[in-house]
């Protein structure tokens, strides 16, 4: 059974199925009820599952996550929504000191089956705090797992897998791809949540990316193909843990790599990918891994965001540079 739908609808359908499958699953967050969330990801769910399973929260992110910890201790599986990337920081303490550490603190007695959904990334002409990519903060936090779907099918399945996970999952939704359509196969067995996927095989250079940049990388690969360069594009899907087997396999073949993300460069996911490639494939790589990322500034005013974000020109330039060595 396959259907074409947007990432937004796929997430909605996935959440619906998760609510259906397990009465312990609850959604909570600001405006997720009648409004269905500012991006309508939870549209219709409160109507169908009631105010006790799709819960509008007071306007306080620490409170939302902190009470979700209590609900999880009680045996629930809360799925909380943070309205925009930039508003996860009031909840950062609860996430880092409580959610991430409860399993560790209790020697496994109290797992934290919680999902924290965060629409993230830029490219939507937003004002400050509405376009950020905070993934590296979470990936640097032991105890959390961090995933991000890049297409509708992954959205549908990964949200269900995240809900089913007994570990806390930071679930980053590439907001500018919410309206991108794709096939959703509601019956097939999905691949494991933390496995990377080669979304386009190629032999010249591997582009490692995730979330909103997967489409950009695929677009770049299509253009490069016209010029006779076969780029491999790997969608990491999980940025913590990263599926190093797939990463290393790819570079063993291509011997060249570029990491692409929207987040500021220093200390980003790219740094870890470069570091691991350096450590593991020191003698294999034929040119330095490159990073095409946001700059080390705050996310800027929207009128320059297209220059701030990795775009086709920057990507193709990097490909040339990688191949020039």
């Amino acid at each position, binding site marked *: 059974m396959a259907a074409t739908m947007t990432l937004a609808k796929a997430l909605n359908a996935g959440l619906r199925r998760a609510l259906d499958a397990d009465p312990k699953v609850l959604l909570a967050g*600001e*405006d997720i*009820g*009648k*409004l*269905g969330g*500012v991006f309508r990801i939870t549209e219709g769910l409160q109507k169908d599952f*009631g*105010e*006790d399973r799709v*819960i*509008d*929260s*007071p*306007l*306080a992110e*620490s*409170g939302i996550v902190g009470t979700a910890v209590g609900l999880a201790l009680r045996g629930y599986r809360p799925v909380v929504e943070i309205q925009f990337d*930039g*508003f996860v*920081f*009031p909840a950062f303490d609860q996430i880092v000191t409580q959610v991430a550490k409860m399993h560790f603190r209790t020697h496994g007695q109290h797992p934290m089956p919680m999902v924290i959904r965060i629409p993230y990334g830029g490219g939507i*002409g*937003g*004002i*400050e*705090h*509405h376009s950020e990519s905070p993934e590296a903060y979470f990936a640097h936090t032991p105890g959390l797992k961090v995933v991000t779907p890049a297409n509708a099918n992954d959205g549908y399945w990964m949200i269900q897998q995240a809900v089913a996970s007994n570990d806390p999952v930071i679930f980053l939704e590439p907001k500018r791809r919410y309206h991108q359509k794709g096939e959703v196969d509601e019956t097939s067995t999905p691949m494991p949540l933390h496995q990377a996927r080669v979304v386009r095989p190629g032999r010249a250079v591997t582009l490692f990316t995730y979330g909103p940049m997967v489409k950009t990388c695929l677009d770049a690969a299509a253009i490069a193909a016209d010029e006779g360069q076969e780029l491999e594009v790997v969608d990491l899907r999980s940025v913590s843990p990263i599926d190093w087997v797939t990463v290393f396999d790819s570079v063993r073949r291509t011997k060249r790599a570029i990491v692409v993300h929207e987040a500021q*460069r*220093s200390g980003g996911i790219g740094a870890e990918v470069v570091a691991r490639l350096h450590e593991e494939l020191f003698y294999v790589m034929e040119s330095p891994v490159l990073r095409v990322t946001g*700059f*080390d*500034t*705050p996310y*800027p*005013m*929207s*009128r*320059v*965001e297209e*220059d*701030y974000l990795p775009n086709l*020109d*920057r990507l193709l*330039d990097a490909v040339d540079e990688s191949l020039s060595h």
Partner: protein
Amino acid sequence: MSQLGADHHSRGLERDPSDMVQLLTPEGERVEHPDFSWHGTEDDLRRMYRDMVIARRYDLEGTALQRHGELGLWPPLQGQEAAQVGASHALNDRDYIFPTYREHAVALHRGVDPADMLALWRGTTMGVWDTKGTGFFQYGIVIGSQTLHATGYAMGMQLDGMVGNPDPDHNGAVLAFHGDGASSQGDVNEAYVFAASYNSPVVFFCQNNQWAISEPISRQTRIPLYQRAQGFGFPGIRVDGNDVLAVNAVTAWAMERARQGQGPAFIEAFTYRMGAHTTSDDPSKYRLAEETEHWRLKDPIERLRVHLTRNGLIDDDWLHALEQEADEFGASVRAACHGLTNPDLEQIFAQTYADITPPLVAQRAEHVAWVSSFEGGK
């Protein structure tokens, strides 16, 4: 049936509460209040009326510009003109304001360049304007965070000896805006704690416009918000937020006690967000038209117009001239918006630090070289 106190919609939070200061009824009638009176001049009344009209026009222009794709977003203030204008008119030159993202009327009254505000919503700047000349700080987007800045600023004014001087011309205080939804944030409650602990000259001005996007006030509190303050040890008072006189009188009182060293106060301006939360929002999803209609009868501008007309303080000519002024202002706003120029990415590197770091200099150089590689016709 809902277990989680879902009766919250029907809590003792009346739509038309009686425990609020009112000096001008929705019908435009002047009434008295035992504790608060208004002592301004006729000119003051006309000025406040004018400022409300101009603010509403600015707001309509903002919404229209957004609809035409000129702005990325616009948060309308319609319905809250009296709360904002009444508050702003209670301030002096040494007072400072920490707004949310909706206080356009205050900004205009303080002299913020309308174009500078549009630049924020257009995305050509981060939202920078003359804070020093206007005393009106940047818009705050992260809900509640500005209340702590306001409190810290007020502490600074205390340290600067600007509180409790015999000569009132040496005193000042801070007005911190926040919404009803914001009252749930930890930061806002911490601001109350700090302000109380240091007895700082800060007045928290909460525009309770009944909604935080789609969530009704009953999701945030089960008792009237103004009662929150007393639990922190300072006075809280509720005022009819659509009554510019009452807002003005209550704010003047609270600011004056703050300036004199009597510490913080909390004002709940009971009002209503007539429009959408922002231009991205669709209120029909979550609230009834009937509610909006109910509030339309309490329109803050209309009630002052009736009062002024009825008392012969303005006439048709005056109103007509004001309409002219508003039209011209509207045109100038549109022109200013169209005149905004796009920034260059290059500026963001220098914008990040007071002293730019060497790695950022290198990133800028890399970027500049890359850009010129195109210009070189690569």
